[in-house]
């Protein structure tokens, strides 16, 4: 279980996260949603350990982040974090990069070789897998980055803006199936940010709604619908929860047009 208590985070003067209390259970696919600049990536960074909150604590399976060398190493072995803009080695092939990440997570040799092959097939990179990454298109780079998170076999996956970055429809479809299966059948914990409510509605067991650095809601999709008193799509539900004024703004926009 991922547990956050009283987490407050700011880089400069303005707090990005304010007094966040969360418990994210194991084996669920949880999506973080919210308006731009409201702390989704920051929240993921705090859990991933790239950011150090000014207040509060982050615990993974009862191990506290950065409290001791042993605890931190144990946490790092448990989870993989894929940011929105990872760095890839230009001169390495996709296959070599995936092998290196797998080796970093001590995935046994035979499993690693087979897994890399299956991932390359899954993301339609069988031929490109042996080309240097510099020759890949943006979508292919995104695919190989996603594959790097999957090849780790980590029990907790933290994925930032996983469906962005030029993924083609086949890639999106493959990723949806993989994430669903990882959470539902293999019992892995997936925590992701996604800006598209339709994808979240299709995949997520739970949704964390962030607004102005605070947790506005943390519930199942059904729970959110009840809370918003809306039986429509998740986009509408989120509209009510996060931007209750948004429809008024739309009306004002057209009212202000003098034509």
């Amino acid at each position, binding site marked *: 279980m991922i547990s956050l208590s009283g987490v407050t985070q*700011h*880089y*400069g*003067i303005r707090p990005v996260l304010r007094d966040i209390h969360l418990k994210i259970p194991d084996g669920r696919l949880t999506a973080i949603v919210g308006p731009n600049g409201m702390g989704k990536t920051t929240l993921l960074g705090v859990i*991933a*350990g*790239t*950011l*150090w909150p*000014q207040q509060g604590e982050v615990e993974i399976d009862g191990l506290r982040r*950065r*409290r*001791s*060398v042993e605890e*931190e*190493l*144990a946490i*790092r*072995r448990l989870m993989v*974090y*894929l*940011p*929105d*803009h*990872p*760095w*890839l*080695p*230009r*001169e*390495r*092939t996709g296959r*070599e*990069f995936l*092998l*290196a*990440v*797998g*080796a*970093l*997570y001590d995935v046994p040799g035979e499993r690693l070789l087979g897994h890399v092959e299956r991932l390359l097939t899954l993301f339609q990179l069988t031929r490109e897998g042996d080309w*240097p*990454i*510099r020759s890949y298109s*943006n979508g292919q*780079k*995104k695919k190989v*980055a996603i594959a*790097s998170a999957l090849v780790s076999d980590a029990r907790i996956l933290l994925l930032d803006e996983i469906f962005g*970055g030029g993924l083609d429809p086949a890639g999106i479809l493959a990723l949806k199936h993989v994430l669903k299966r990882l959470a539902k059948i293999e019992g892995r914990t997936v925590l992701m940010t996604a800006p598209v409510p339709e994808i979240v509605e299709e995949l997520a067991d739970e949704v964390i709604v962030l607004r102005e650095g605070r947790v506005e809601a943390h519930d199942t999709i059904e729970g959110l619908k009840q809370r918003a008193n809306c039986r429509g799509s998740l986009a509408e539900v989120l509209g009510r929860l996060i931007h209750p004024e948004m429809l008024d703004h739309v009306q004002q926009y057209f009212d202000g047009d003098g034509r």
Partner: protein
Amino acid sequence: MNMALLRWLRLVAPPAWITVTLLAWCAIMEGIYAWIGSTLGWQALSPRFFVARDVACLAAAAYLGVYRIAAFHPLFDSDYLSWLWLTPWRYDKPLPRGPLHLVLQDVLTVGLITAFMLHRPVVPLEYAPLSFFVTYYLTLALSLWGVDLRWWGYAVSALTGLMIAVSGRSSLAGLAVAALVYIPAYAGVRWTLATFPWSQRTTAWRKGVARQWQIFTAGHRQFAMISVNLEHPETEVHWPYSVLHAKERPSFFGKGDRLALALLAGWWCWVIFSTPGAEEMALGIGPMLYVMLLGFVVSARLIAYCGNHRPPISFWGRVFTLRWIIPGYDKVFLTPLATLGLGIVFPIALAKLQFEPPLILALSFPPFLIAGMLGGPPLAQWRLTSPARLAPGVRNQQLVEEI
């Protein structure tokens, strides 16, 4: 008979081109000397005419010293080492490629080089064997370090410094010290062979050095030709895997190594700058080197600790939220500050106490090096437990692509 003699000589002889080049160079110098002397008169020739010849002879002797260890030690040749592992060779048998210890052939070879300088030498003749001994002992010290006999290596290195210091005052006495240093050096060679095959750390070190050299000498286009390093995959990946991985990085330099290296730096500084004729360097190039090394140690420390581990909040964040000091993070600056302080205070204090410039340099190097290399917190601990914001660092655009 001649062939047998040649075979005997070739046991430890350097490549033929070295000998031929040296012979040709000496012949040319003697020829020019004879021609000028016979046409312009011998009095027209400066005694310094043979500087180039003597420098070539000293360089050849120094090369031979390196060659005797580098070419014959299995540590420096992975093919030789791998092959030796597969054979039933034991330390009580001769090394197949040739001995590491000195043999009669070495005496003849170095003697021959010295003989080339016999006609009107510009420097004392003893400098040729001394050049040989300096590089032979230093390369041997490096090999001892490489096979995990580190303290023996440091000792041989320090004694080589003593040999140079004595040679600067009396080259004959220097030769006597060189002969004495051979006792621990020879013991080191025997010990090296007795501990074969060496520890895993040795193998890792040798592989690591070879790989870094391969990467260093390859252009970024050729980089792809170097196979991916799955033994140390953390060197193959970038943000965020490079800073968030759970691989513990064993340091090749323990605390003892760092202390020894700091003390050796001071010792060698004294050896070099106190040599008669080099005192002026202690006032010229010495302080320059000192400042450069001090700057390097402080910068390297800051880059290693803060390159990927930035303050948790920005400068203006600190100012406006009145968190001017973040003790958990800012403690990382204490060691660089102490290093800088010691590096400045020591030479000034010693100068005020009227110490000689070489001694000022020699005594000032170790304190700041010890502080810079041994000051806490340990890097591995800092990387895992510091209250820092992890950042990707500087991107080498030729090797790294950001999505």
